């Protein structure tokens, strides 16, 4: 068994958390949040996360191939 099972909450990646909190759950409109109905705040947050993860990956592994182009063996 790998240590992937039952990892402590602290180690749950931000992606796992944000994927739920920004994308799922009861969608209710607060009157304050309604005031920015022209901007989808969830989309704003997801974009921020995406660009940051992408930047981190570029720093971590310069020059690696995108997943799809990786040879299979």
């Amino acid at each position: 068994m790998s240590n992937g099972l039952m990892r402590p909450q602290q180690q749950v990646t931000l992606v796992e958390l944000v994927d739920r909190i920004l994308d799922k759950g009861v969608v209710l409109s607060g009157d304050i949040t309604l005031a920015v109905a022209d901007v989808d705040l969830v989309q704003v947050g997801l974009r921020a996360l995406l660009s940051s993860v992408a930047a981190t990956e570029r720093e971590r592994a310069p020059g690696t191939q995108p997943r799809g182009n990786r040879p299979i063996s």
Partner: protein
Amino acid sequence: VTAGPDPKSEPERGLYLYGIAPKGAVLTRSVEGVDPTSSASLLELDRVDAIVSEVSLDEFGPEALKTNLNELGWLEACARAHEKVLEEAVDARAILPARLATVYSGAHELRRLLEPQTEAFATQLEELDGKREWGVKAFVADAELVGWLEATDDDVRALRTAGEPGGEGAAYLARKKYEMHVRARAADVKAQYAEATHAALIRHADRAQLNPLLRGTLATSDDDLILNGAYLVARPREEGFLATARELEAGRQTLGMRLEVTGPWPPYNFVTPIGEVG
């Protein structure tokens, strides 16, 4: 240097909504809210209670939110505080989690907007009573899977050695044929794993939700994600659910499969988006 009191020294306060709990829910301890100067509390509504905390509108007002949600540090702190309140502040049979950044100008506005929906909230909470969400991701490491195929699949082994005595052209073609075959077999096996894993887990669950397979920048691993499921499991059945997950992984580990189980989560994947209706 200005003299006299600053008219902005008392920032306006709003109410941040974390989720909805059934009547009978109690605060277990004081947990800091997304604005750490206030801790979470329960606000009584008609048939349910709202889990809320006060926030400064300097930080959670409409303009500020547009900026703050773009800053990853702020977003992460807010998301973690939100989740922590839902997990630790309240003892309840079920919770309807709200999305991040649902803010009201005060208790009066919150009541005005939510009271018409409390009947629907109560119904959903009854359906979710005593059940929690678990996330399961299944990954396959391609290299290990291919190694296993070469060791066990006669066709793959035959193609691997075919064309070796031939010239360069024949060897190239044989290599291509081998790669195509391996890729197709690997895809078959992955689809089988995903289906069998889901089928075994769902036997312990009340409901299940298959989510998109995150790729590219949102992928959390180099291995291939073949299943991204959320399962709503009644508490007495959790032990069986988790044991099944461990068995599934142990049975296929040599084939390069790994399961990542997270939870228990509030039932993010199993709430109906009431606010979008009407």
